[in-house]
């Protein structure tokens, strides 16, 4: 199976100057393949968010190699990283982070819109079809505040898929939902993963949800734990 993302010896630290240098990631090696559904676990402070930000091209690593869909990405400038991010990656945040000034449909269209600067033909239909898929077609015109928590997060998942990404990075997507809704949202991501072959990397603390994932990765002290099954 084709590699979607490859990290080799990725290091990331913060500080310098006045502040002491603190390294968060001490050389992470990780490969995700097309169609995988992977959970990422680890105690707080283990560097999960930092790792996600680096994989999501939101910040560059200090050292190591990063390849996304065959393109080297660790040393790109901001514009090139933005282009790559827009083309291959989708994000789901813990708090839905939908734009309050825009309707559900407009929020879903936002990655296409933001990346190209305008709306290509067919984008609206694709976005509507995605909303339909998650049962929100009749809510397309509503603002985020008019939706329930579960609906908001489903819109956010659909938004992450709008650009037909290769990899969706989800940072505790169910952390803010009740158990029932969390299970539903998680199941929805599984379904989409199976239907569309999009790779998912999902950070979760919920052991019950993580158990459903075919592959589990553990981050401990800034390194991928050698045997995820033992640590989990």
């Amino acid at each position: 199976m084709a590699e979607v993302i490859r990290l080799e010896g990725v290091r990331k630290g913060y500080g310098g100057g006045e502040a002491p240098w603190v390294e968060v990631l001490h050389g992470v090696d990780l490969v995700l393949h097309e169609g995988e559904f992977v959970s990422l676990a680890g105690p707080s402070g283990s560097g999960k968010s930092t790792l996600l930000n680096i994989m999501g091209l939101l910040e560059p690593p200090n050292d190591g190699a990063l390849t996304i869909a065959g393109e080297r990405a660790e040393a790109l400038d901001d514009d090139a990283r933005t282009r790559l991010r827009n083309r291959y990656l989708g994000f789901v945040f813990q708090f839905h982070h939908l734009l309050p000034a825009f309707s559900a449909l407009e929020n879903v269209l936002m990655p296409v819109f933001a990346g190209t600067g305008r709306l290509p033909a067919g984008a609206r239909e694709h976005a509507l079809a995605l909303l339909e898929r998650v049962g929100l077609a009749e809510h397309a015109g509503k603002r985020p505040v008019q939706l329930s928590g579960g609906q908001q997060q489903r819109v956010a998942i659909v938004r992450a898929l709008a650009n037909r990404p290769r990899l969706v990075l989800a940072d505790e997507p169910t952390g803010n939902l009740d158990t029932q809704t969390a299970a539903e949202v998680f199941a929805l991501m599984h379904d989409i993963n199976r239907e569309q072959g999009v790779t998912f990397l999902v950070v979760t603390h919920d052991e019950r949800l993580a158990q459903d994932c075919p592959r589990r990765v553990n981050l401990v002290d800034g390194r991928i734990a050698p045997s995820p099954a033992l640590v989990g």
Partner: protein
Amino acid sequence: MSFVVTVAFRLMREGRFQTALILAGVTIGVAVVVYITAVVAGLQANIIDKTLSTQAHLVLKPREDENRRLIAPPAGGAVRAEVEKRTQRENTIDDWQQRLDAVRALPGIASGAAIASGPGFATRGGINKSVSLIGVELDDYARIVPLAPKLKAGAIALPTGTVMIGSELARELGLAPGSRLRLLSATGAAQTFTVGAVLDFGLRDLNRRWTLLPLRAAQSLLGYRLEVTELYFRADNLFEADALKARARALTGLDADSWQDNNAQLVVALRSQSASSMMIRVFVTFAVALGIASVLVVSVVQKQREIGILRAMGAPASRIRAIFLLQGALVGGVGSLLGTALGAAMAVGLSRIAITPDGSPLFPVVITPGLFYVTAGVASAVGVLSAFAPAWRAARLDPVEAIRHG
């Protein structure tokens, strides 16, 4: 609509209160600028108009006589000699037709007229009044000094044997159109004229002294043959009179004065008025720019998380920057439209309130389309410039930080 336009509009709509606030600021600023510009322009045009309604833009007259030293200073030495100023003869211009035509042909000169003038007396019923005898070719003269608006009684015409007089002289001597009036010059020559028209020159002194008579009659009264004393010219653009002066002087060998020379104090007053109105406009523009910038800076801080999300979704920094630059331009552009309307309304309102006793406006307010365009252009440019700092700040936001702390 493009991403930048859509998001810019949506964010402004979302922050309605701020948008209204900033628009109000720009509107008031622009209104003040438009109002001051319109009122000052109207005021100045009116003052210049009134002043120049009895004056030529450019006057050519004979060179003054000057005494020359008869003793040349020896080499290495000096001769002290008092050189007295001499009395100026009543000098005249001969060959004036040729010179008049030459200057008339200059680009920028609209019209020209020859004047033969000198001191004299008007007498009626044993009463003598000192007057200026001003001989003119009526058609030429009227093109330089508009007479129709000054007519109080009679008709604007100067057939042989008629004279047009000022309203004060008419009152003092009890004259009306059709009355007979005897004019004498200093040479003793005298002739009786019929009053053809009574004019109001707008100044009491001119109304008391000015008598307009046919050129030939004035020449013979004043003892000239075919000469005249001055050549009057009107320029297409009155502010080019000074530039035309030098050319007319070189062309004719005569002395030349522009209206600015003859009204030096007025010119200084107008200049300082223009300068202070410019100062006000500049400072108001600065205040408006600072207002736009500060509101946009706040807006960037408030919209931090949205900006971070848009960046994470794949919006390039340049597009984020464009959103805020466009907001600045929109605020400037829309504010300038509202502001010019408000300023124009205020200026027109003032011209309704400030009226002369007869009900006409004290001064006309000058609102040109150019003022609209310039104001709209400047305001939009100021909007964009003021948005520079906020826009760059927005574009530089780190998406991770912006989403976490926004």
